[in-house]
């Protein structure tokens, strides 16, 4: 089958979180175009020393077989954007360059109307697919389901080629997962339907622009010295959590400090107080803005004062204890984490680690 997308490049951008498998999807889509569809293609990911749970972008370009791919920059006017998790809404440049010509696929169980508003999508064709649910039903991962959705939404990528590239690559490496992966891809294809969002002026077009910081060459301290000590406290990492939070029950707490020792993210706020009629350091509770949801505290708490709960069932804004060492509570937080609601099997599943 000859692919026809009617112009020089067909450009895709995958918006995801480290650990969800977008990097692998990008590689597979590139290979699909280059080796299965006879196109010219390139694929690469946003690079950095990103750790698990950080936002990542992956880029794929298709071109006609005889067209040289001359650009190496990020996709800034995408023909397709695939969003691996709805909590990426509002993250930097996720919707940048999305216009009438763009097909946007979002992994979500919500309605298209809700998702349009959530992502402030100005225009384009919107495909909402509950990839997580489909992945769980078919014992596969979100990225496989979304590959099926990409084929459907593109209108020119044949489903059988997607199945073939996955069989030839992942199937060889992880034969046990192949059946589930293929079922997931097919289900993704079948359950993806698009609606056209007209450019009705409800939301503005967002231009892809490189980030400019407060410190430039005329005011940055010389040599990269950073005098704002402890400033990472203004990072909100809530979105690194994978759907679960530790719940703190002060009544059960014996102020033993185990959670303090075993929390890598310095979440629990201890202050001088009184416990059992004696002066003691007492636990006020967690500052969830720095909690990545590793659940180490739940495992070490001797009295079940800390238990695991589903984040969506709790309004943590009401119970949050702001970091007690802050001079001023009124600071602007940067939302730097991202939600990767993945099951624990992902730690050993078919993810190819991103090279740093």
């Amino acid at each position, binding site marked *: 089958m000859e692919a026809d997308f009617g112009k020089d490049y067909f450009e895709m951008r995958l918006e995801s979180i480290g650990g969800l498998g977008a990097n692998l999807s990008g*590689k597979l889509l590139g*290979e699909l175009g*280059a080796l299965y569809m006879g196109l010219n293609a*390139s*694929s*690469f990911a946003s*690079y950095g*020393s990103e*750790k*698990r749970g950080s936002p990542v972008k992956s880029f794929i370009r298709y071109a006609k077989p005889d067209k040289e791919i*001359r*650009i*190496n*920059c990020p996709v800034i006017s995408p023909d397709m954007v695939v969003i691996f998790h709805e909590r990426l809404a509002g993250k930097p440049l996720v919707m940048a360059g999305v216009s009438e010509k763009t097909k946007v696929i979002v992994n979500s169980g919500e309605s298209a109307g809700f998702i349009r508003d959530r992502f402030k999508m100005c225009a384009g064709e919107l495909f909402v697919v509950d990839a997580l649910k489909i992945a769980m039903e078919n014992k596969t991962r979100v990225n496989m389901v979304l590959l099926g959705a990409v084929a459907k939404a593109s209108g020119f990528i044949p489903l059988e080629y997607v199945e073939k590239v996955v069989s030839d690559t992942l199937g060889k490496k992880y034969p046990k997962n192949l059946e589930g992966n293929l079922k997931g891809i097919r289900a993704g294809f079948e359950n993806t339907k698009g609606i056209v969002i007209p450019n009705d002026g409800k939301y503005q077009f967002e231009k892809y622009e490189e980030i400019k*910081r*407060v410190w*430039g*060459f*005329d*005011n940055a301290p010389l040599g990269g010295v*950073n*005098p*704002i*000590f*402890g*400033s*990472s*406290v*203004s*990072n*909100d*990492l809530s979105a690194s959590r994978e759907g679960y939070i530790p719940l703190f029950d002060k009544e059960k707490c014996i*102020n*033993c*400090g185990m959670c*303090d*020792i075993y929390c*890598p*993210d*310095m979440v629990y706020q*201890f202050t*001088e107080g009184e416990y059992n009629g004696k002066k003691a*350091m007492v636990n006020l509770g967690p*500052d969830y*803005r*720095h909690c*990545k949801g*590793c*659940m*180490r505290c739940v*495992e070490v708490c001797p009295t079940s004062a800390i238990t695991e709960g589903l984040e969506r069932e709790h309004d943590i804004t009401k119970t949050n204890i702001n970091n007690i*060492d802050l*001079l*001023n509570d009124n*600071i602007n937080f940067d939302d*730097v984490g991202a939600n990767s609601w993945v099951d624990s099997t992902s*730690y050993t599943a078919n993810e190819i*680690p991103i*090279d*740093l």
Partner: protein
Amino acid sequence: MLGQKMVFDSGNELAALAAKQINYHIMGYYPITPSTQVAEQLDLMGAEGLHDVKLIPAEGEHSAAGICYGGSAAGGRVFNATSANGLLYAIEQLPVQSGTRFPMVLNVACRTVSGPLSIKGDHSDIMYALNCGWIILFAKVPQEVYDFNIIALKIAENLRLPVIIAYDGFFTSHQKRKALVFENDSDVLDFIGEYKPEVTVFDFENPVTIGSYMNEPDLTNNKYQLHIAMEKAKKLIPSVFEEYCNISGRRYHICKGYMTNDADVIMFILGSAFDTAKDAVDNLRQKGFKVGAATVSVLRPWAVDEIYDVIKNAKAVVVCDRQDSFGAGGGNLSIEIKALLKDFNSHADVITRVYGIGGCDFYVEDAEKILNDGIAKIKSEEVMKFDYINKYVGSGEKDLRYFAPLTKEMTSPENVKSGVDENGKITVSGGSIKESLSMPRRIAPGHGACPGCGIFINLNLFLKGISGNVVLLFHTGCGMVVTTAYPKTSFKVNYIHNLFQSGAATLSGVLEVYNQKVKRGEIPDEDVTFIMVSGDGGLDIGLGSAIGAGLRNHGMIVLEYDNGGYMNTGYQQSYSTPKGARSSTSHIGKCGKGKVTFHKDNPQIFAAANIPYVATAAETHPADFIKKAKKAQEYAKKEGMAYIKCLSACPLNWGDEPRFEKDVIAKAVDCCYHPLYEIEKGITTINYDPEKKNSKIDVVEWFAMMGRTRHLKNAEFKGVVDEIQGEIDRRWERLKVRNECDKL
């Protein structure tokens, strides 16, 4: 033309594929982003038995280059890959390689040179290699990386010169593109031809001396020989390009122009950005401007005739430099183009634009803007002769203070007390978890470590035992990268990062200036504790420097968080990785059996340097950890260097769940892989004996908890596991004897 097949691979993958097809004797290497994948891919193929290349993981790039030099002097075909500071660390070896005339091939995935540290691409590394006597080929796309790797070896062996293949880090090293590769490895080998080294140290009938001590007239002649070789290279390279075209159908040129024949303005640009420039040329041509673009695929030798021939008709040459020779009015490319034009008495204007520093993306619009500057120049408009693109002034917002600075009083809560016993031995007491809660945090939350990361648990435990003012120095590694991503920092106390070859040396300098300033009354004595923090990786490459500080007995604490691998770069094996463990440079496969050597025993290495205090600690024994930190502080202040090693969980690369890491560490302690002990002035004390607690387990139980070692449960690995158990038992038994006897 010979049989070829289409692949979709990155530059690094294709460099590795070429190396596999050539079947080099050895690759001496040390991982550094973005070149690491070359060794990883080669290891992956080796694990499947696809080649015989012996991969030798050095403890740093300097040694990697040394391994390669030795291999080439032994008459072997030798291969390496590096980037940025790796190239600079190795650079002393480069003129040795060329000056004594041994061929080899080195891939350089170009990356910006530290500091401040960044891992992304520019050309600040490769330009340091210009004066090293190596041929430098520059590949702009993955296809060229593959082709040049084959061409390079033929040139190298023909001229007895080493060759670098440079390519843009990430843009070319990591971007996947279509490429044609030879189907048969034998075709590649036939093209290169058989290697008959003229010199080897294995000809015992004709012994040779390699590396003479040489004085004035001889050295001049030696260097002139190198000059002659480079002149020969100018003629040889085009003929090898031609031969390669005959077998591949791909024709290369020393200098390549795009629409340059009638161009008034030519952009001269290196690497992946050349193709982007072509799009800009097309756009401006459509508007009627006579512009063009040119690049070189051979950076050394600098073939002035071929280059001038391409750019000779330009009225203005706009040189785009992806680095700066600070203060010289341009990067090295600008300087060389200016010199070249002078050779031909050209009156063309040259303007310089520095672009793409530290991986800044280069858009077609950027290239158009730069070309427009050239157009303005030939219209005699006012144009900056030299400028940086992508720079910007700041917005001048007022800086905020998040925390009150930690005072000596605040950080001295007396949660753990120290003293001296009747024998003059340092004692500590306290250190319970509850007591330690009053110690304020020296590290702020909001760092970017993975969920469940062990580094911060270890750091916090350690710092709970340290009272008063501190100066921290971190080696490069996860602990550094996740805390100091500009413009933020997690440190609430004074902190320095230096590269891991010289962290301890840096802290020696800090400490001695402190002593001098106090002595001279320039600053008050604030009773400062100096602490170096390193991963196990930093103490592979930086071990020499750390031991040096130990031999000087500088009063500092070295804290090693050992997660058993180079985790910051995607988990390559370190010397501390368990034997048999899977890593991205010790794959499991038909022929690959994981890491082949035992885990390094750093506490014993430091003990052998006779520093006053050595200890091991674990998060499973928090009070013990806190007390050891306090003891280390006392020793550092009173006696000299103290070293503490803790085992640090890495859920991502250990392949286990963050929430259960405490149990994993507990098993490592209980199987005596990580025994808890301390050595005070040569006297060993075991602090936790799992045998006495009836909790001793076999190491395989620990291995079974982690994805990286789970395969060791299988029967086929029984031999390896027995060996590891034997080694652990041997080390443990020796510790027990030392525990019993003060003299050992």
